[in-house]
């Protein structure tokens, strides 16, 4: 009897899932399916799509622009995920462990907010400012010349040798704040007794970081790595505002290629194929991460 009524109760709860589920179908699943179907057609954005089978995917295999953009994505993974996570870890434990103790809670909060600021600033605005800094007659080169290092001045965003690094620098600048804030929130969860004990045993700052902070922060690091890796696969705005994928496609990203074909060449079907591949990669990455994380959790970390 009791079990029965619980089950009936549960059934009642399903009703409350309907609105959310409808929303999910309407704005996530529906468009994904539409996109998948479109990727097998030739369509100009208006008129009737024409079925072309796997032609778009065949074209994709031999498209230098697509493979170039995939190659660049590896760099964007570095600048979206690896470097910001490392910098974020070091900065978070510096602010949490050192600045807060040696100076004040306030100063530590101030730095946290300052590092987070690029996340709040609209990227379009930030992009224009970075454009002024990085263009050949921009602030960066002017400063280099002022301090007598004019020989180091470069055509940062206009020369294929430096453009990818320059765009990556801007991405790191944006991403560090996100990692930092999540890691600092995670740090406040860790039992201070662990640090005290380690300190009493003579562990230095670096040893505490490696032996306590990193293992204890593992769940946060997972979440940050997963979200930023997905963001790396989708990177668009910094490329759009800084270089439009140039010079000569040196900073092209898959999302920008999708945008280019969708809106300017009117190869909507081809754009859909690019974004389908992107989606499969993203989903695959997410699944790998979630499985990995679950295993870690089961091992009882």
């Amino acid at each position: 009897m009791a079990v029965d009524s619980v089950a009936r109760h549960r059934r009642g709860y399903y009703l409350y899932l309907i609105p959310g589920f409808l929303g999910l179908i309407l704005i996530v699943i529906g468009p994904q399916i539409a996109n998948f179907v479109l990727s097998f057609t030739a369509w100009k954005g208006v008129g009737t799509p024409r079925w072309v089978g796997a032609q778009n995917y065949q074209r994709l295999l031999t498209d230098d622009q697509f493979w170039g953009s995939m190659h660049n994505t590896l760099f964007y993974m570095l600048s979206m995920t690896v470097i910001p996570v490392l910098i974020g870890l070091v900065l978070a434990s510096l602010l949490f462990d050192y600045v807060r103790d040696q100076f004040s809670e306030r100063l530590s909060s101030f730095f946290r907010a300052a590092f987070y600021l690029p996340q709040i600033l609209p990227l379009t605005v930030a992009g224009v400012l970075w454009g002024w800094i990085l263009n050949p007659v921009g602030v960066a080169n002017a400063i280099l010349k002022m301090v007598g290092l004019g020989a180091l001045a470069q055509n940062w965003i206009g020369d294929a040798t430096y453009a990818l690094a320059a765009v990556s620098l801007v991405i790191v600048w944006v991403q560090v704040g996100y990692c930092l804030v999540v890691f600092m929130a995670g740090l406040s969860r860790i039992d201070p007794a662990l640090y005290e004990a380690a300190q009493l045993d003579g562990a230095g700052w670096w040893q505490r970081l490696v032996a306590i902070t990193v293992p204890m922060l593992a769940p946060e690091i997972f979440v940050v790595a997963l979200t930023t890796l997905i963001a790396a696969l989708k990177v668009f705005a910094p490329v759009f505002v800084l270089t439009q994928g140039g010079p000569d496609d040196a900073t092209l990203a898959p999302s920008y290629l999708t945008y280019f074909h969708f809106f300017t060449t009117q190869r909507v079907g081809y754009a859909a194929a690019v974004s389908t591949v992107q989606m499969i990669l993203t989903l695959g990455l997410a699944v790998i991460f979630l499985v990995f994380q679950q295993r870690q959790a089961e091992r009882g970390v």
Partner: protein
Amino acid sequence: MTSLSKVALVAGASLMLLGSPAFAQDKTFNIWWYEGADSAQGITWTKALEELKANHPDVTVNFEQKTFDQLQQSGSMILNSAEAPDVLEYNKGNATAGLVASQGLLTNLDDAYTAEGWDKVLNEGQLVLSRYNELGIYGSGPIWGISTYGEYVSAFYNIDAFEKAGVKVPATLEELTAAFDTFKAQGVTPLALGGASTSGQHLLASLAYTKADDTWVQNYQGLKAPLDGAPYLFAAQTLTDWLAKGYITKDSTGMNDDDASLQFTSGKSPMYVSGTWNLGNFSANIKDFKWGQFVIPTPKYSVGSTGNLWIIPKGSKNPELAKEFISLLLSTKYQTEQANNGGVSFAADPAGVTNPVGANASAVFAQIAAKQGLGFYPDWPVPGYYDVLNQKDTGLLQGTLSPEQFVDEIKTVYDDAQASQ
């Protein structure tokens, strides 16, 4: 308040409601354009719209300022929906106006052309980009849009710097390079260039047009044959030569048009090749020196065209008002007004134009149009070619592409589009 006055108030209010022209007010005229509010077109069109409002006090005029990108990117989808306005400015060319015309989203203007008397202002040369056939290719077919101004690419030059250096306005390509040499010898980079932006590909096309004849331009713009790369090869070789001699700098790959035009307006570079859309900016912002324009010396064709089109969507609720507005813009009054705002007009009254910038630009445009020398823009034939030319142009300028490779790469994209049309 006494109850009597309350009654009177209610009665009065009801009377007012009854008496107000509530039904006539329902007529709303929706109009969009994206020319900047301080551009010659923007100023003129705003004034003309005021006159339209005054002529039709019963109509609510609802103007929305759009951006070029908004309509470039989602224009066809807007025109395909119920959200389309009664009349709007739209980008001319196969990939834009041609596409929506061929999809049946526009009102045919063939009858209006004669009925409204537009045929007395425009000639067939100024209608080339108004006509699109059933495939959306310009040049033939019905009239789908009307342009009320012109535009062309030329070299802007610093008159003071030219006089100081003893350089005269070049009439041939040789004289142009001689002028470059004189400035270069004085330690000045003669030509400002936005390699990552429009001015890069317009310089390239201007140079290609020095080797282009009627057949080449017609084939090229009409996607009629695989690309004959010879004019572009000459242009690419000339550009790399200019780069090697320091007439332009390698840094230009990191500059967009805003950065490059700043090099000109600040007086650092004495020349800048770009379009008449800079006229408003230069008139307003160059205070320290006198400046002028000369057309890049070519046998016949210049980069330029009639301006963007006024189109009337199929679902327009007020096509008559839309036509009346277009007629206003083509009238001598507003053509003259436009030239006085520094714009390029078709039919200004020369006696009425007091602004030398607008007078000169309108006269130069008339010269180019008279010899049928509008070569149009290099990115027109192929959708997405604008970005392709920018990318490959920067490759050429930074030295990762040789002139031959450059031509190969743009030819691949062109021929692909040509074969699959």
